[in-house]
């Protein structure tokens, strides 16, 4: 059982490599767990607990059971392989419904869609990057997206990236985003540390990362900050670069689900934007950021992780969040590269960056406090 450890504030984070599983515990418990992983006998364990932690035999017994249960659980998990699926598909003919060229970071990607449904899945998020076919710019790579045997197939040039059922279309969209970004930046999958379910804005090389459950106001807060001198780095899908541990831009449109009225005074274009159905209850509109398609993109240093909660009638409260709570919220909601150096660097990035919760209802005081945070002037 290969594992790696990081320490913070009297606690330890384990990362079990083959199972890509994280565990956060008290430092003292981590010592006991390590002993159990190394195969300590029950009697020696009890004696160690008595001697080191002044625990009763019953308490030692209980801890031994916990450690054993953890080991049994970790062992029962499937082994995660970081191998990429790159087999070559025999040529499958599909009728191209539409072809679109996208331009960003000075590069061009060509995408062939096999149906309107598949086009609707991807294109509206990136339509602001579309360029005319006749523009003289070499194509970096061609993405083919089509249906085969009731599965969505994504092929990049001759490589099969993957196949997904329609129920897993969010995973298809996630993989598309990753490949799209990698091709447009000339990077490989292993060049990314993680992708966070987060938005981010930046100013002068520093960014604020906004997190929180869907519907808590990430996109609205992002848009409000954009009216206040901040620039959009990403919305919903935030890549973290491996070598720098910094956040990288992603050019997806901002999806505004609630508070359309709150934003139309700043973005009148939203009133005319197509209202789309996210699910039976939620509608949303895309807000397209202004992007210089030729501009060379660069990563930004993360100033803070802020878990946003827009709550009607509440006072503005920015409170420091413990690293345990931050890890608890961030890890299950993120893709983290299962490569050892990347996993450890991800933990470093989280543990080194201040984390906060922000509750607010008044825009002006939210903007004020975010400015203070950005300028190290929190009172």
């Amino acid at each position: 059982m290969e594992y790696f450890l990081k320490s913070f504030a009297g606690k330890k984070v384990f990362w079990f490599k083959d199972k890509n599983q994280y565990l956060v515990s008290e430092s003292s418990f981590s010592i006991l767990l390590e002993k159990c992983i190394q195969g300590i006998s029950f009697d020696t364990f009890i004696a160690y607990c008595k001697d080191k932690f002044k625990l009763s035999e019953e308490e030692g017994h209980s801890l031994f059971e916990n450690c054993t249960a953890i080991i049994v659980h970790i062992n029962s998990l499937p082994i995660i392989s970081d191998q990429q699926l790159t087999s070559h598909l025999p040529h499958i003919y599909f009728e191209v419904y539409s072809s679109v060229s996208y331009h960003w970071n000075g590069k061009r990607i060509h995408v062939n869609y096999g149906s309107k449904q598949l086009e609707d899945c991807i294109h509206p998020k990136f339509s602001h990057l579309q360029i005319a076919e006749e523009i003289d710019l070499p194509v970096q790579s061609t993405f083919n997206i089509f249906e085969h045997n009731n599965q969505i197939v994504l092929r990049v040039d001759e490589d099969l990236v993957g196949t997904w059922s329609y129920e897993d279309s969010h995973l298809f969209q996630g993989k598309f985003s990753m490949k799209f970004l990698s091709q447009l930046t000339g990077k490989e999958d292993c060049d990314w540390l993680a992708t966070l379910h987060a938005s981010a804005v930046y100013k002068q090389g520093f960014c604020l990362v906004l997190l929180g459950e869907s519907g808590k106001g990430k996109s609205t807060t992002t848009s409000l900050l954009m009216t206040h001198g901040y620039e959009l780095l990403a919305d919903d899908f935030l890549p973290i670069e491996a070598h720098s541990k910094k956040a990288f831009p992603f050019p997806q449109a901002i999806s505004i689900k609630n508070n359309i009225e709150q934003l139309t005074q700043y973005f009148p274009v939203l009133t005319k934007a197509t209202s789309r159905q996210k699910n039976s209850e939620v509608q949303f509109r895309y807000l397209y950021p202004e992007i210089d398609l030729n501009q060379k993109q660069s990563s930004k240093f993360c100033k803070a992780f802020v878990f946003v909660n827009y709550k009607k009638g509440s006072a503005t409260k920015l409170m420091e969040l413990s690293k345990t709570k931050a890890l608890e919220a961030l890890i299950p909601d993120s893709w983290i590269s299962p490569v050892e150096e990347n996993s450890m660097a991800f933990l470093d990035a989280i543990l080194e960056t201040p984390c906060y919760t922000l509750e607010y209802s008044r825009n002006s005081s939210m903007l004020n406090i975010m400015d203070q945070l950005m300028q190290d002037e929190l009172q």
Partner: protein
Amino acid sequence: MKEKENREIKESQNKVNRRDALKKFGKYAAVTALGTFILLNPQQAQASSPGAPGGGF
């Protein structure tokens, strides 16, 4: 003999229950504060928001 079998079944059920609880909740508080731990599973693949826009198949 029967008593021993019963005990073994009970122990094995306990193990299953504990394992199930771990799987189900990903979080298990021990009887002492010392033994509190949290298991966290990252996403195994990059994903858009669940029920992402445009995914209405």
